[in-house]
């Protein structure tokens, strides 16, 4: 079975690196984007099982990016991942599939990816 491919979208280079390595350890193929436009660009060229999307990013922020992603593919699974806990209640209205507060403990993130991607 082809391993699931994950797209990490975050403006922080080291966050991208951390998540990439953590997820690759789990057997996922990981692609990276450093901002919203970059992410949309990549999405047009390849398909992803799950997109992990930061919210606070310069230029196009995560919520705007999310809307654009859904325009391209309304069934695209997206997990919002942010340093802000206070938007947690709102994620349902943003039609994302999950909301996670960034943590050094990546178990919750992995668990959510497993659930959302079904892999």
């Amino acid at each position, binding site marked *: 079975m082809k391993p699931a491919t994950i797209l990490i979208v975050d403006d922080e280079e080291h966050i991208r690196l*951390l998540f990439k390595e953590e997820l690759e350890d789990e057997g996922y193929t990981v692609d990276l984007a450093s901002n919203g436009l970059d992410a949309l660009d990549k999405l047009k060229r390849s398909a992803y099982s799950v997109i992990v999307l930061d919210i606070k990013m310069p230029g196009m922020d995560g919520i705007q990016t999310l809307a654009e992603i859904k325009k391209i593919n309304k069934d695209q699974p997206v997990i919002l991942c942010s340093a802000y806990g*206070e938007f947690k209640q709102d994620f349902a209205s943003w039609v994302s599939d999950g909301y996670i507060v*960034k943590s*050094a403990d990546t178990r919750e993130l992995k668990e959510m990816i497993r659930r959302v991607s079904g892999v």
Partner: protein
Amino acid sequence: MDSVNILGKVIEISHSNLEIASRIEAILNILAHEMHIEEAALYTLDKDKRLSCRFMNRTSRLFGILSGYRCHVGEGVVGTVAQKRVPQYFTSRNVPPRFGCLFYADLDGATDRYKAFAFLPLSDDSFVYGVLLLCSSGRETIVDSEKIVLSIISRELGGILHTYDLLVSSKKRISELATLSELGRVLTSATEPHLLLQNIATITAKSFNAAFTTIKLAHSFVRLDFQRFTSGEIDAAIEGPLRDLESEALRLRRATSLGDHPLEAAPNGGRLALYCTPILSKDRVLGTITFCKKSEQQLAMEEDDQYLVSAVANYISSGLETSFLNTKLRDVLKELGDAQKRVIEHEKLRSLGEMTASIAHEIRNPLVIIGGFTKRLARQVQIDEKDNRYIEIIIGEVARLETILNEILDYVKDTPLLQEPCNANSLLDEILYLLASDKIWERVRIVKGYQAELPSVVCDVHQIKQVFINIILNAFQAMGGGGTLTVRTEKALYQDRSCVKVSVADTGGGIDPSLLDNIFNPFFTTKERGTGLGLAISNKIVMHHDGHIEVRNRAGEGATFGIYLPINSKTQTREG
């Protein structure tokens, strides 16, 4: 008799600077001496229209008898002369049996030796002020020329008495004005009701020369700690009659009096009179003011005094109204000030919160990176036990920082409340079960005092759970892991709203009283490793529910936290 000489002396004295009483006595002495008359006595007309014998010449013997009695206008010879304003002259042969109110028999042995009697009205054109009584034993009659002199002198004496009356009444008016102005000063200067009433009692007691003055507030109108304000001492023997009189005045809504009450406890067997007036304000009875007078003074309240008393009562009523309005105004202003303070505090916290939030967010990314990669290191690198311990410490500290950030952000964010009914008993059971299943709770005895059939509270269960956990964990930590934790639930009132009250009591020795005011402030902590946000968040959550958290110190024992949660939240009531 040298008429000119007598009249000259009399007029000289009459217009002298001597005191009124001295003037009258001097004239009576001149009369007696110059006209060879043994008895020269002067009756004055009192306010109650009775005549009493007040002055006499130096050698008078009758005065001792006469001064003991008073007579009405029209009664006896004295009364008739005062009424008809016509002089009457008698000899021992035709003197009537009654001088004044006295029967002849009372004067037996005293009047027998007198042969000539004269009764002269002391009056001016419009008013009679008294009666002059002359008795002589040395003379058979009083001749016409003497009668003319006597009528002139009696006019003069009438004038003196008139002056005296004017003087007395103007003195009285001045004292009344002084009293009223002093009352006015008190009313404008004292804003505290109890101070106001105490001052009024003192001033009026002095002004009425009362043994005591006492102001009692009606039961229906007691908003003060004290009900009675007294100047002077209320004798134990008079307390009962005083209370009866006060209730009577309250019931009748008019002045009542109790005259000449024998006072058994008084050292000299004194007698007291009470005069009580209700204090009325529009349609309400605020209370009563009572004056007590001693018997040596005049017992009855004169008509003039009654006016003054009712003026005083009016002063008190308006003073109380003003004072209560002032108090109300002050309370409202204080409330307003408090509200303003809360708004400012809230604003401060909000901006502090916003700043904190942004710092917290900035910190989170680097923290996640440090922690995340350290974890990877721990998994991947072969290291010795010591290094491994260091890495564990880094991971542990990062986790702690993350917890702190979460708490800070929890405090900062204003989460909308999810309203659902919640049974505090079950929620507490659930929490206590979870917490106590931990081994570190082994040495804690949990005592539950739940009220059966406790009503549900409509609340955000998740948030309220957080509050209960916070407070129970605080109690646990205060006891150093061992002691008795008592959790009670009951129905209670907070600010007139039905609430469920949850009390959590520990045996951890209590909170330093100097810290009590601060324990709900954000970032205030006594724990070595605390953010100081636990109680602040709890307090905020409970306040969002229109509830209240209180802390009580049980000295030397521990602290009790009381959490009041309204059974129906305001939002719920508005919608429902």
